[in-house]
């Protein structure tokens, strides 16, 4: 029986059916759901590792120990894990080792666009690319077999559109794969990569590429679909679907393995068609491989290099190049639309980061940010983040600016999960090299951005084991930073007092701003919507300047100033009270005052909001 599975669910299912023993990951869109799904299956150990490099090392360790292992991450995660990815290519392993890189063409949720098929070429690791959920499952299983057959890690490269599309999948049973070793291997020549051993491994790795390429010639992962021979399209992954949609009559060489490529199969296909076209998303990876064979083809001269493909983009480009498309591309209808207000992502109502950004905005200090929900602190009216590059970058950037002699005190902000990911070595660097950076750890006790995953500060693992929380303040002190304070993120005055105290000394300092994410299910149950006392509100607008989506402009205006009064949206307000603390006229009632007022009037307390989605 077929079931609708997302690409991510299908990869998890495939890994499980392939008898995977261990899986490790750091959450990252569009890859996160793979481990979330796999962790619910029996007989598989799954963990959120602290970062992607650690996740790959963990998977490598399991594979050295003879157990099938999986590591999953978003495309930029493989940058973090690159060092491990390369040595794993040199060593190989004792059992199947599969690494999933979920690329994000179009940058739906990423800081850059990159084509990780390049990593496969770079590290000499075979790369499979599925085009739908059935293939996501099948290719995951094939990747484990391939890994063991050729003693190599295998990269499964997906894109947002395969990860987050659902298509019918035929389910199978789990294959019980016995561990291939009883003891950890003592094979220094293979597993201890000192130069002498690594030199011996390199030619084996290069030979392995040739062997896999020869195998790929007849592998069912690659196939030619002969149709009309005036045009032949070489394609892979989601681009295959667009090729079939837009160029239904063209012959197609569909590559399930995009590295190494099957040279003879490509030659046969090229010789069999009049015009050879390569349709691929992002980099001209296949196009360059084909050109290196001395075969003329067209690719990026027709289709865009940047951004995500879709049927509209492909149809327009193909039609402009004179290819026989399924239907003429339509121009966007002239709909004479009014100006439509955008819905930019904002810090949520009740976001514990708001008070910190309100403070930093007021102090007008330069702030090096990091990757997470809190990057949204860059948006007006707070406009309190001035750089953001990649996971863990902010602390180092702030340190560098400080050491270079910038005349301002640098602040770095980083979330709890990001701090454990790559912030910790950067903070050790601040402690060691003694810059006066103030690092603010925004500890909302979860990995919020990717959907509330656990992390070393939550006291819970992916598979629900209760563990101790890593305690930030003693950790920071142990690094040798003694100016440390922990403050409730909702305590506006407390944040400012701690900030002043920490900034008073010219040395490294850390402020832990702690409060759970307001969207956590158990926190949602405690929401209480605040209320504005119209008689006290003067329309001064201070509460509007914290960028809270729950604070609206009322239709009522202040009699004196003529300015609109504040209005709290009861559906959105969580009762964090940051606005109430900032209001100079005490015009916003606190939670206690709201409750008191309701008891007074006999109105029932606000019903707790539904905990679920």
């Amino acid at each position: 029986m077929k079931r609708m599975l997302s690409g991510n669910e299908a990869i998890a299912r495939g890994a499980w059916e392939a008898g995977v023993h261990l899986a490790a990951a750091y959450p990252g869109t569009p890859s996160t759901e793979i481990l979330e799904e796999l962790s619910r299956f029996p007989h598989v150990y799954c963990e959120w590792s602290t970062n992607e490099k650690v996740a790959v090392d963990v998977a490598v360790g399991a594979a050295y120990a003879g157990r099938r292992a999986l590591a999953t991450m978003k495309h930029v995660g493989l940058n973090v894990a690159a060092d491990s990815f390369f040595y794993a290519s040199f060593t190989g392993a004792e059992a199947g080792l599969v690494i999933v890189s979920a690329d994000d063409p179009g940058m739906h949720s990423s800081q850059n666009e990159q084509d990780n098929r390049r990593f496969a070429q770079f590290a000499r690791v075979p790369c499979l690319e599925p085009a739908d959920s059935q293939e996501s499952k099948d290719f995951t299983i094939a990747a484990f077999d391939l890994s063991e057959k050729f003693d190599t890690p295998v990269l499964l490269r997906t894109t947002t559109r395969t990860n987050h599309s659902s298509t019918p999948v035929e389910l199978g049973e789990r294959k019980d794969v016995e561990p291939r070793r009883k003891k950890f291997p003592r094979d220094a020549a293979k597993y201890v990569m000192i130069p002498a051993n690594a030199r011996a491994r390199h030619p084996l790795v290069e030979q392995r590429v040739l062997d896999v390429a020869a195998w790929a010639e007849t592998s069912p992962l690659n196939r030619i679909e002969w149709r009309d021979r005036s045009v032949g399209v070489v394609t892979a992954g989601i681009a295959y679907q667009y090729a079939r949609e837009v160029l239904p009559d063209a012959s197609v060489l569909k590559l399930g393995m995009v590295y190494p490529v099957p040279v003879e199969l490509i030659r046969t296909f090229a010789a069999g068609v009049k015009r050879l076209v390569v349709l691929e998303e992002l980099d001209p990876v296949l196009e360059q491989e084909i050109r290196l064979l001395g075969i003329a083809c067209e690719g990026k001269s027709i289709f865009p290099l940047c951004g995500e493909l879709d049927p509209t983009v492909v149809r327009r480009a193909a039609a402009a190049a004179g290819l026989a498309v399924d239907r003429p591309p339509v121009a966007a209808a002239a709909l004479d639309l009014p100006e439509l207000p955008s819905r930019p992502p904002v810090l949520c109502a009740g976001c514990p980061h708001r008070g910190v950004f309100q403070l930093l905005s007021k102090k007008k200090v330069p702030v090096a940010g990091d990757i997470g929900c809190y990057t949204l602190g860059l948006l007006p009216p707070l406009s309190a983040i001035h750089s953001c590059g990649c996971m863990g970058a902010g602390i180092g950037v702030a340190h560098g600016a400080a050491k270079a002699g910038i005349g301002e005190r640098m602040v770095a902000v980083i979330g709890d999960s990001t701090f454990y990911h790559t912030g910790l070595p950067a903070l050790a660097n601040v402690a060691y090299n003694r810059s006066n950076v103030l690092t603010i750890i925004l500890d909302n006790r979860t990995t919020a951005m990717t959907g509330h995953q656990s992390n070393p500060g939550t006291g819970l693992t992916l598979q629900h084991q209760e563990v101790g929380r890593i305690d930030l303040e003693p950790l920071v002190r142990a690094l040798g930073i003694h100016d440390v304070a922990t403050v409730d993120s909702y305590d506006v005055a407390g944040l400012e007092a701690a900030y002043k105290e920490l900034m008073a000394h010219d040395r490294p300092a850390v402020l832990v701003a702690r409060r759970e994410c307001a969207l956590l299910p158990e926190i949602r149950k405690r929401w209480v919507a605040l209320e504005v006392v119209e008689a006290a509100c003067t329309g001064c607008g201070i509460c509007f300047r914290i960028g809270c989506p729950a604070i609206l402009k009322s239709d009522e205006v202040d009699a004196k100033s003529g300015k609109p009064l504040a209005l709290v949206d009861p559906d959105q307000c969580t009762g964090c009270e940051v606005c109430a603390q900032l209001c100079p006229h005490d015009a916003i009632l606190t939670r206690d005052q709201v409750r008191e007022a309701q008891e007074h009037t006999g109105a029932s307390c606000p019903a707790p909001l539904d905990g679920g989605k």
Partner: protein
Amino acid sequence: MSSRSKFSFVLVGVGGQGTLLASNILAEVGLAAGFDVKKSEVHGMAQRGGSVASHVRWDSERVFSPLVGLGEADVLLSFEKMEALRFAHLLRRGGTAVVNDMAIVPVTVSSGSSAYPGDEHLARVFAALDARLVMVPGEALAQDAGNVKAANVVLLGAVSCLLPLPEEAWWACIAQRVPKKFLDLNHAAFALGRANAGAGAPIGA
């Protein structure tokens, strides 16, 4: 199915409105009816109160692209009025727009920096596409059924009238997705959606 039939749907709204659940049900209804089905959506930043869109395609033969192209959607199901305008360009000429009579005011409007478009644009824009516009008071009908949160099931009820599948095929998939104690409520919501989908023939394939 003897001759090829295919339908493309685009479901749009604001993060948190239940578009994902509705698109899951729509995909399952198609699969159960024997269609090849693909569904696509983007997770991530869009969930924080942003615009969200899911694409669902049914084809009695085979679906290739999970994404619906410009001017290719047979049905635009919008959970929010302004989002119907934002994604109107995806609807094919002569298609059907089912629009929830609900405005969710974005922060760019509440902060006073821009204005929410008036209802007159809906009729004008979809008339320009020769499209049928079906306005459904989703929240009001869901309230009548017993809970305002069932608005997404009301809207599915309205869409179900437009397609050549029996009512039971829809209800069977919805019933699997809702907790038992809310079955009656959701059935009432679904029925109200069907009753309020407006007159008109089912859409052609």
